[in-house]
């Protein structure tokens, strides 16, 4: 009894920390934290940015262009929305009417400089398999980079993200580039289908239109405000909660152990008294 009352008392003690725990990511907060998209439609990405391809060899950004490009930023260790976005792309690509590698190309770039070409190669294998039909290797590149290259690329595209205790906070967006490396439009993900097997989907028709227009050099301006962010949600009060939980848990276990020892020690006395 005492133990339980003790647990309840301790539980009530930690209420203030629970009330204080408050964390949400509204578009305003995200913007205040400098996370989101700063529109740079019409500007050209510096062609001399150096990245690394899946084999680990240097790849100049200029050499990756030459046709309209879908540019996506992820980090390869992400276990939240990044894989779901890539899955969405993998499902949309076979349905495009354009010819892969000749008429468009997908560039997936990790903004985490600790990601290696090895892990990029393994991701590439996953999503190539997910496409479910033969698809040219060169049409979807999984790139990594040094801090400097990453910074120049994200700066040029206006992609604002931040490192967090559990990965990164970043917007979910497809950036369409012209064959010359000019930013043509931002396609932001606004819908997340909760509970579906594939919560992030892209319309092949929209992608077709965007890539065709990018090939013709037609830019579309405008960035939506209500967009999807990829971030880890770890309420602040949770740490304290677990701290108290472990103390209470250990106390309970100790009390039970003490009770057991007490029963064991007094067992003989009670049983011979009878």
């Amino acid at each position, binding site marked *: 009894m005492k133990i339980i009352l003790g647990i*309840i008392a301790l539980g009530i003690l930690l209420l203030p920390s629970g009330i204080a725990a408050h964390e*949400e990511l509204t578009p305003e907060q995200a913007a205040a934290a400098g996370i989101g998209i700063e529109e740079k439609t019409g500007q050209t990405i510096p062609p001399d940015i150096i990245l690394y391809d899946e084999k680990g060899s240097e790849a100049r950004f200029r050499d990756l262009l030459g046709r309209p490009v879908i540019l996506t930023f992820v980090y390869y260790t992400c276990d939240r929305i990044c894989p779901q976005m890539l899955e969405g792309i993998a499902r949309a690509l076979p349905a495009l009417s354009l010819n892969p590698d000749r008429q468009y190309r997908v560039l997936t770039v990790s903004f985490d400089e600790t990601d290696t070409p090895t892990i990029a190669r393994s991701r590439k294998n996953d999503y190539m398999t997910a496409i479910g039909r033969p698809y040219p290797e060169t049409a979807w590149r999984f790139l990594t980079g040094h801090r400097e290259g990453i910074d120049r690329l994200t700066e040029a595209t206006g992609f604002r993200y931040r490192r967090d205790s559990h990965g990164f906070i970043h917007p979910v967006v497809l950036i369409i580039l012209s064959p010359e490396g000019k930013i043509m439009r931002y396609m932001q993900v606004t819908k997340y289908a909760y509970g579906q097997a594939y919560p992030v989907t892209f319309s092949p028709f929209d992608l077709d239109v965007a890539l065709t227009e990018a090939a013709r050099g037609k830019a579309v301006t405008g960035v939506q405000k209500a967009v999807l962010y990829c971030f880890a949600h770890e309420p602040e009060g949770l740490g304290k909660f677990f701290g108290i939980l472990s103390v209470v848990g250990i106390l309970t276990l100790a009390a039970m152990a003490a009770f057991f020892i007490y029963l064991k020690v007094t067992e003989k006395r*009670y*049983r011979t008294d*009878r």
Partner: protein
Amino acid sequence: MEPMNKKPDRAGFYARTGAYRWAIVEWMMSTDHKRIGVMYLLALLSFFSVGVALGFIIRLSLLAPGWLMDAQTYNEFFTIHGLIQIFLFIIPGIPVAFGNIFLPILIGARDVAFPRINRLSWWLYAAGALIVLTSLFIGGKPPDTGWTFYAPYSIRTPANVSVAVLGVFVLGFSSILTGLNFVTTIHRMRAPGMSWFRMPAFPWTLYATGWVQMLATPVLAITLLFIFLGRFFGVGFFDPTRGGDPILYEHLFWMYSHPAVYIMVLPAMGIISEIVPVFSRRALFGYTAVCLSALGIAVVGYAVWGHHMFTSGMSDTARVIFSFITFLVAVPSGVKIFNWVSTLYKGSISLDAPLLFACSFIFTFSIGGLTGLIIGSLAPNLHLHGTYFIVGHFHYVMFGGAGISILAALHYWFPKITGRMYCERYAKFGWLLFFIGFHVLYFSMFVLGYQGMPRRYFDYPPQYHLGHVISTTGSWFLVAGLIIIFGNLIRAIFRGERAPANPWGGRTLEWSIASPPPHENFETIPVITRRPYPYDVEDVR
């Protein structure tokens, strides 16, 4: 009072003590473990019948979705079905009813260690049950969260969740006190000469259960308290809009509710371990292993709760660990299954109703356990978790495990509890209908689930119709079987032949005293000189 005493069958502990004027007060104020146990048993079986009726109506409604109830009513029905069957019937179930009646007798004691705390547990149980039932009838809607009270819906729903949660909270205290009482009783009240390994298997499982009750139930209490605080004071531990984490709720809830599975199933295994030796006239094979595996299950069972949450957001590392430990807990369960079967091997078997039920326990529980391994592995779990497969598995373990063992115990100990014999033919006929109905009803759920029928839905696409019709047909057989089984038992209470002290040839202590047992059980406390199932020494075969 006078005319009541003339009734000839008020024998044993049913005889009026004369301490109170009204019988009902005398019973409610009684500290006799047998009386408390019988009251528990009656309450449990009443709730069970209500729960079965609700389940029956749910199945009926699934015959053609929408013809009997709308979506909200369906939610309320399966919530109340779950609340009643889980919290009012199966979790307290075996320990409070059969444990109370037989634990002191099996270890050669006159009562439990704390008879008045025992009475308090019973009062708390009755109060908790009343509070839970109140939530159905007072203003507002009955609870609609499912029996798990998952946050944040349980914090936001306008339904009467608070009252139901309060009831479950009170029931939890009853459970803790019972555990405390039984553990102390087993430590202190064993008859002279009854060492740990001369104790029958049922007390062993009650001992393991007692520790689980004491350790796990406080977690539930504190979790429900937070639901309470969330609803009334806006404390947002589990509410993401207030900075809380709904997955935290799931962790805390299953940290209790998975061990609770062992609160139900461990004593069920104890009952089977009592019945199988008696009806096969053999000492319980691997007696020591059976007893210790109860402790093994209780210990390992603490660390598997995560397998309820494989699909709700957990790191892969945690998933792999929980999955592995889940496989581990199958080992002591398997030890028991194999030992029961080995006990039957070359035994002199008399296939009476209790053994029929015990064997169906072994069969059904094996299916429940093995399907548990399927959903305990990570990859199949992703496909099966949200489906009827879980519903099927759950009912195979709860109803097919704990439920059937209660039916087995009822038939096994019925002569001892009531002093009457039931009709064996009707018992077997009822068993047959029940057994067929059970498997038709719940096995089709495995198939439905594998095909992708989601659980908790009141509606379904046409391709699942056949499966649902088969399942519902099974429920008719099952209910018919239950009606025959209980009709037979109720008839026996009034019309049955008088039972001898030892109708089955049992060798444990309860069969050495009169049926029904007298107040205080034993005139002289027996001295124990050997293991509980001495058929091998006696050479009765």
